[in-house]
């Protein structure tokens, strides 16, 4: 046991309880900063927040050792790693849990932690992290940060026995590597952020270092409430809440029509304005207004008006209240499976999307996705509940893939394969292959055929989304302010704006209509179904070569998910 001095207390060894204190400090320091980590998203979209994912992973790990009075370092680390693995969520959370697993393997027989043991733990942690990460390993991520920090530890352990000093070098190098991540990964550079997972890891080890130094773990920043409310559709909207009741569509024919000027005038009348033209002689107008007469008389002053359609959406809405998705029974599986059947476990947010996966034969849904990445344990528990021995997991989000893989490895008594769907449209495309195979007596038991076909189905669709920007951004040549609506197609920022209908329409405009046939719009929990369907009709008339399907998805945060095929 070493004496603590006021500035830089030395620690030549730590016992299990001291290590426990360090881990708690790492978690606490991350907790102080996880919102900063969350904001390091490459895309300004609400998605699997790295900070919260890593924090939840740490909390799950901590819960395993919180009550332990063991002083054996190996025992403490073993349980900590187990908790981390079970609770790991999001790709960074999974890699973090693997770092701890590496630590636990290296320290298994260690009563106490000294410099040599720490160096070995770092080395093994790095190895486990790289093994778990998608191949080929991407540099400029948490992997680079932990590897470089570990390399420095290997060097300085030659002539340094003090854990405080070694940890200081670890953190120093981690920060150094972190700052260089944008140089290694162009997407980070364009977004103007450092790697979020690397940042989260650095905070954890900084917290551990602060503990060794006896420094405060209270951050100098203001803490704010962090709970993200899950939006639900309002039960019945009043006319005032509903807003512009009239959906007006018309065709204007005239000479030298100034489309930009007409668009500005129409936008000023209401919302969901879409003004499109084919040259200067025909302009198609769509807008939601209180007074349907306004756009019609405005247009009739500019030329000849035709094909006028006026619909009262609020009346339709009232007719539909009670018959909407909320009145339906909760989603449930539609197929009965035998142990020989190949089954599907899908991860999806929103009751509407869950219903689609169930209808196409999913055995079990785990709720989650973009913003709420499920943990390894949740996915593992769902695997256990499925009667089949052969299970395919559809993660439907790139940030869920590693947790799914980890859960699959845990489920040793079953054959589990991951079909790495990165988004909902890919997942539904793969699900349809499964549905077809399941109808076929020759295929329904054939894991290899089903997995191959589902994988091949992933690339049949393009994926798009309309959401609200969580921060200001300038990428892919598009500038968006925080709070503005943005449209992305295949992870490329395509459009930003303030009107949902126009942004959605412009996003669809980025699709090569010669190449594709069908656009499916899955509308989110905060979008009214009548308005969504009205938009679908407008899009159908705007983009004649594509057909549109509007389906309730019920997902949070994403006003529309688009599937293009």
């Amino acid at each position: 046991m070493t004496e603590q001095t006021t500035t830089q207390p030395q620690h030549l060894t730590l016992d299990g309880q001291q290590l426990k204190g360090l881990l708690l400090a790492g978690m606490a320091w991350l907790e102080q900063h996880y919102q900063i980590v969350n904001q390091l998203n490459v895309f300004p979209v609400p998605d699997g927040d790295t900070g919260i994912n890593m924090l939840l992973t740490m909390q799950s790990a901590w819960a395993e050792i919180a009550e332990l009075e063991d002083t054996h370092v190996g025992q403490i680390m073993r349980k900590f790693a187990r908790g981390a693995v079970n609770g790991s969520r999001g790709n960074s959370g999974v890699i973090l849990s693997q770092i701890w697993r590496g630590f636990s393997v290296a320290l298994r027989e260690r009563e106490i932690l000294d410099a040599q043991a720490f160096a070995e733990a770092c080395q093994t942690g790095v190895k486990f992290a790289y093994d778990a990460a998608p191949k080929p390993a991407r540099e400029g991520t948490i992997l680079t940060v932990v590897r470089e920090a570990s390399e420095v530890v290997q060097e300085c352990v030659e002539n340094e026995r003090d854990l405080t000093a070694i940890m200081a070098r670890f953190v120093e190098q981690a920060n150094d590597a972190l700052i260089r991540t944008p140089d290694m990964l162009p997407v980070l550079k364009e977004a103007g952020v450092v790697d979020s997972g690397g940042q989260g890891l650095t905070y954890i080890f900084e917290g551990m270092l602060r503990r060794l130094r006896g420094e405060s773990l209270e951050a100098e920043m203001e803490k704010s409430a962090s709970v993200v409310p899950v939006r639900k559709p309002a039960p019945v909207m009043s006319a005032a809440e509903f807003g512009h009741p009239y959906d007006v569509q018309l065709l204007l024919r005239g000479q030298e029509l100034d489309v930009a000027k007409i668009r500005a005038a129409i936008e000023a009348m209401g919302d969901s304005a879409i003004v499109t033209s084919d040259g200067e002689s025909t302009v198609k107008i769509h807008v939601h207004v209180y007074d349907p007469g306004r756009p019609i008389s405005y247009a009739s002053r500019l030329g000849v008006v035709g094909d006028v359609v006026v619909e009262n959406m609020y009346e339709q809405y009232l007719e539909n209240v009670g018959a909407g998705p909320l009145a339906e029974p909760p989603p449930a599986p539609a197929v009965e499976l035998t142990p020989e059947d190949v089954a599907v476990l899908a991860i999806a947010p929103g009751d509407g999307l869950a219903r689609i996966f169930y209808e196409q034969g999913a055995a079990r849904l785990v709720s989650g996705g973009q913003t709420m990445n499920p943990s390894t344990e949740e996915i593992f528990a769902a695997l256990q509940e499925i009667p089949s021995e052969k299970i395919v997991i559809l993660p439907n989000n790139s940030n869920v893939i590693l947790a799914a893989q980890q859960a699959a490895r845990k489920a040793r008594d079953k054959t589990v394969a991951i079909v790495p769907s990165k988004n909902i449209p890919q997942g539904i495309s793969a699900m349809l292959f499964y549905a077809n195979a399941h109808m076929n007596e020759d295929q329904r038991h054939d894991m290899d055929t089903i997995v191959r076909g589902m994988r091949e189905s992933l690339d049949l669709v393009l994926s798009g989304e309309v959401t609200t920007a969580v921060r200001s951004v300038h990428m892919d040549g598009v500038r968006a302010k925080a709070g503005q609506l943005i449209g992305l197609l295949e992870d490329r920022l395509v459009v930003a704006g303030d009107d949902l209908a126009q942004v959605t329409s412009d996003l669809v405009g980025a699709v090569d209509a010669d190449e594709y046939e069908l656009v499916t719009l899955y509308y989110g929990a905060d979008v009214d179904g009548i308005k969504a369907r009205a938009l679908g009709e407008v899009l159908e008339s705007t983009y004649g070569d594509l057909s549109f399907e509007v389906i309730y998805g019920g997902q949070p945060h994403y006003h529309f998910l688009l599937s293009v095929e």
Partner: protein
Amino acid sequence: MTAPVIKVITDSVCDVPVDVAARLDITVVPAVVNIGQESYLDDGIQITREEFYRRLPTLRELPTTSACPLGVTQELMAAKAAEADHLILITTPAHLSGIYNTFHVAAEAVAPGRYTLIDSGQITMGMGFLVIAAAEAAAAGADVAAIRAILDQMQPRIHVFGALNTLENLRKSGRIGWAMAITSQLLQIKPLIEVTQGKVTPLARIRTFKRATERLRQLALDLAPLERLAVLHTGNPEGAEALRDSLAAVFPPAQTPVVHVNPALGTHVAARGLGIALVTQSQAN
């Protein structure tokens, strides 16, 4: 001794193209198409198939089909019986239609003891290929037993597939039973079906018609080498021609008839569907 003269008579569900029927002297007894209160013979004169598929999407009630009136059937059959020693009668499957029975009654009246009545077990060109093969063999001087053998040998090599543009008509006609497996309350589906022995089997739920067409093409490629091929459609000639041309590698387009599917099947398939009928080469070839 000269070979006996054998003539082939069938019904319009077989979809044999008019020029082929004329060339091989095949008599096609028209079925009856009922649209609302109106009835038309499916003879390409009272109502053309183009017109049928143009009107189909606009009809509130689905058209139905029934067997040709006995009198008309008998008249057509008697004309042929006068020229031939023997009649080969190939009909729509008996479990689907009254045509088989009508043919039986008519043949007993006009050519007792001089006919062979065959339930094709197939519809559209699946049946048409049997009719054509029988007529070709008859023209080449084959006797009844030889013709029967040819048909029996061909029967298991016939495949008929379809890609539907909509399930709307199946819902309307209440034939959603078999379609249940393939339908979706939530997603738009372009079903791929197989027609065997007059029964429809769902093959796949597909989201886009383009991809469903691609699957039809793939099915033909998978079954090659082919002995015969026809492309079927319900008022979608451009799509059918494109499909035929895309199959040039497995079968010459010039020998691939593009046919309007008969109303009996088309009423369920709905407009703008596509299909293929084919006969695979026998192992001996």
